[in-house]
């Protein structure tokens, strides 16, 4: 049953990325939410901040056709190597750009799964359950050890 559930959950999460939602009901992700997520106990270790330029390169947003100035705000935290856990809240000039970025992040997560399947298999389930969503002009990526406290904040 678990074998069936995991891929299904992954599919739901990945498919839900970039689905535009009515802005009146679901405003963009806020920096305050990102701060809450960092401290909610979702991560198995402290994760460390990335500079906006490093995050830009990591997610290959240039290759996705975006210009650097289209990413207007960045909150990005990443494991320094012990795990694959990370949290990124990227803000763009508009919703369409955010959707393009979310597609790039979706590919990034897929690449991470492929890279770690043999090397660090214990990290793969975290990646397969990655929370990736865009709301308005923001994109949120969460790769966590324990999704329950994070989801309680994201979808109360």
């Amino acid at each position, binding site marked *: 049953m678990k074998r069936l559930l995991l891929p299904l959950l992954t599919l739901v999460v990945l498919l839900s990325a970039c689905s535009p939602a009515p802005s009146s009901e679901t405003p963009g992700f806020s920096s305050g939410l990102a701060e809450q997520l960092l401290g909610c106990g979702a991560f198995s270790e402290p994760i*460390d901040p990335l500079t906006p330029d*490093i995050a830009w*390169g990591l997610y290959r947003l240039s*290759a996705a056709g975006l210009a650097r100035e289209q990413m207007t705000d960045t909150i990005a935290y990443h494991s*320094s*190597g*012990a*795990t694959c856990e990370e949290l990124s809240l990227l803000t763009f000039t508009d919703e369409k750009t955010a959707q393009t970025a979310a597609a790039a992040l979706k590919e990034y997560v897929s690449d991470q799964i492929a*890279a770690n399947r043999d*090397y660090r298999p214990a990290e793969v389930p975290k990646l397969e359950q990655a929370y990736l969503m865009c709301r308005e002009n923001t994109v949120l990526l969460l790769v966590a050890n324990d999704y329950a406290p994070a989801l309680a904040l994201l979808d109360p």
Partner: protein
Amino acid sequence: MLSKLLSALTAATCAALLMVTCTASTQLLPAVPVIAVPEPPSPPPVLLPYDFSQPVPQSEPVGTEYFADAAFVGDSRTDGFCLFSGVGGGDNLTATGLSVFTLSTKQTIKTDEGTLTVLDALERKSYGKVYLSLGVNELGYSNNDAFYAAYCAAIDAVRTRQPDAVIYVQTLIPLNEGRIKASGGASYLTNQKLCVYNDIIRRVAREKQVPLLDLYSVFAVDGQLPEDFSRDGVHLTAAHYAIQLDYFKTHTVSLPQLNTAIQSAEGLI
């Protein structure tokens, strides 16, 4: 007796003259602003004949702009360096789990031309420096000769693609075995084996005449990576990658210096 007296008298006279001169200078010369005269550039820190199995000597620190034309080739530890050290430039040509055995086969570097091996990615532009760090993912291999041969072949392959670059090789940063055990890391990750590989890397540096950066010595305390430098015993924590960057900044070799070192190692000068 007379000579001692004369000697003392001479010394006293000299001291007195010096005092008079200094006093006179102070009193007679107008005050002028002190202008710092830049010192001439340091001579190349190359000891001849150069021994490539020894680490690059310390040099004047360079700025991060030095790394603008650098390629960082390695595994996840080098990736961590690129993400967290603050190096601010250079290309990240790293892959999780990369080894000297998979350098030419593992297709992981995403480019506009598709997903390439590290070696193929190296061919896409000209670099001034290539920082190569591999070996941790190979610690489980028992054939040291194969590791040596593969490392030599890796340098040849990089040199073929980047003939005008300074290729730096690095000894492996030590592990913290306590952390590895606590986090369920592989049992083959030991500092004993890592030191065997570091000796091989020194031998490779001498054989292939490439500058050696001795990161092991930078980080090892009693043969271990200090516990608070890593959460899993293998990868540095973000703050500690800055130590690696500082070492890189203060241990550089220019291409002319390298060529001189190669000539001296070959007995040509």
